[in-house]
């Protein structure tokens, strides 16, 4: 996957552990959006990829200081804009 350089709009599921991003759009049914909202998933919120589960899926994300795991099948529909500054901070 294309990492760091030109982050325009990518999918949450494609981010690597340590990368941070801002949620732009959640392309899921309204009901699902509202369900995700209770865990803090909403546009404009910063999210960091914590780590993947040992078998590669689900992935734990740090959002609002909590660790929330999502399956790739859900994270695939969450569009994000990777925030370069914090992703560099994380890797540095």
């Amino acid at each position, binding site marked *: 996957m294309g990492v760091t350089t030109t982050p325009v709009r990518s999918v949450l599921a494609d981010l690597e552990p340590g990368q941070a991003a801002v949620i732009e759009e959640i392309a899921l049914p309204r009901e699902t959006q509202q369900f995700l909202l*209770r865990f803090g998933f909403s546009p404009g919120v910063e999210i960091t990829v914590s780590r993947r589960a040992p078998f590669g899926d689900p992935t734990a994300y740090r959002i609002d200081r909590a660790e929330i795991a*999502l399956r790739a099948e859900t994270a695939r529909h969450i569009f994000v804009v990777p925030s370069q500054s914090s992703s560099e901070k994380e890797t540095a």
Partner: protein
Amino acid sequence: MPTSMSMQEVRTSQGKQKRVRTVALIGPPNSGKSTLFNRLTRLRQSVGNYPGITVEHRSGSFLVQGEQVRVIDLPGVYSLAPFSEDECVAVDVLRGRMEGTPVPDAVLLVLDATNLTRQLDLAISVIALGLPTLVLLNMADLFAKRGGTIDPLKLAQELGAPVALVSATQGTGLDVVERFLEQKGDEKEITRLPVLNGPSHSRSWASQLERRAGYRPPLPAGWTRRLDAPVLHRIWGPLIFIVVVGAVFQSVFGLGQPLSNALQNLLNLLGQKAAVMIAQPFLRSLLLDGIWKGVSSVLIFLPQILLLFLFIGLLEDSGYLARAALISDRTMRSAGLNGKAFIPLLSAYACAVPAIMATRTIENKRDRLATILIAPFMTCSARLPVYTLLISAFIPERPVIGPLLGSRALAMLSLYLLGFLVAIGTAKILKSSVLKSASIPFVLELPEYRLPTWQSIGLRLLDRGRVFTRQVGTVILVVSLAIWALTYLPFQHGHPHNWNTAPLPASDSSLNRSFSRWASTGRLEWDC
């Protein structure tokens, strides 16, 4: 039913005192709400079910200035939007629409102080209901230790409800609850709360509110991240998982089984001792073979159930249960279930009853139902003697893979495997038809690691034990009484039918003897 019992308690005490106050306890999962409930009520608790649904109804009581106050522990919810059964229950109780539950006079809202942002939504929707509400920012000890700050007075002004920092695990700051309940109703300030139009609105409102209340979140617990590194490691993670699960399984089996057996022997001995003192044969048989046998068959389940819940409690309170769900999710998904179903299904190998009781950690109602329905397919320990009997009767011992694996061992393994495969198949059929749940995704919160407290584990064991003996015990007792009546009555030639001396039909094989003995004593014994 426990609920109606505690209702009666309330009614009788109503005669003595003029008013009985009811307080609802609400908060998101992992906010320490149950710990607070246990702190407040100690052992004065009762558990039942709300009419017609699977949500547990927990209530208890405690004294405020000599007056008894009833506490209703509502299920943990993230919001008041009625998504899950739990949330519907919470809303119905708070609005006074729940049948058999009195309208609460006040609300105790428990929030996790270390992670306020996403709980403020719940806070305003609860406060907006208009009941006197006390906001308890729990885990104040952790919050302060990790450098978090907040001005509770300012937050109270913003929310329009009193706010206090407490620690349910340490028991600090809890006197505020009593003070609040003493003077509730006195202050009737109505604060204008924002009308929420959408998620982003409430979000900016929440961050503004946090700023005004001087909220500085604490640093994340460093050791949670450090512990997660090996626990969720690609190689170490699954290894630790297998060791933990194996240890739990081994202790429930290896420790629980002999304890059960010892308890059964003890109960049988007591029964026989008592039988000598009862001369009247009908009465003796009713008391001993009917009631006492029924009571014992309930009680001998307890060691395994309590052991299992001890471990589940330790895993859940420490935070490992969520990690185990994360690790096993990939595997469970192939059956259409999710990671949270793993521990309950594994427990079903020991006994299906606690396994079904343990499914309450699965929030998604359809997933929970699917897990409950397939749990009995797992070969539980009580089925082992029946399998052994059938195998020794029908399968001749023959080596299959040299001396390593005999035909009987293979048959036993196949039976275990068959149960597992049928469970997986059933789960797949259920999840692709009647129990399909498409719109609600699997979301798993990984709480911070915490040291479990003995008080909370002990209370949980007591609670589970009580639920089991009351709800399951009564069914077992009634059934065993019915079986006793069927075998004892009607009289033949003025005497009850004696199954032990009755002539056996057809061939007198060892299988036949074992079965007839099993039918008469309820126990399988070897005949070799």
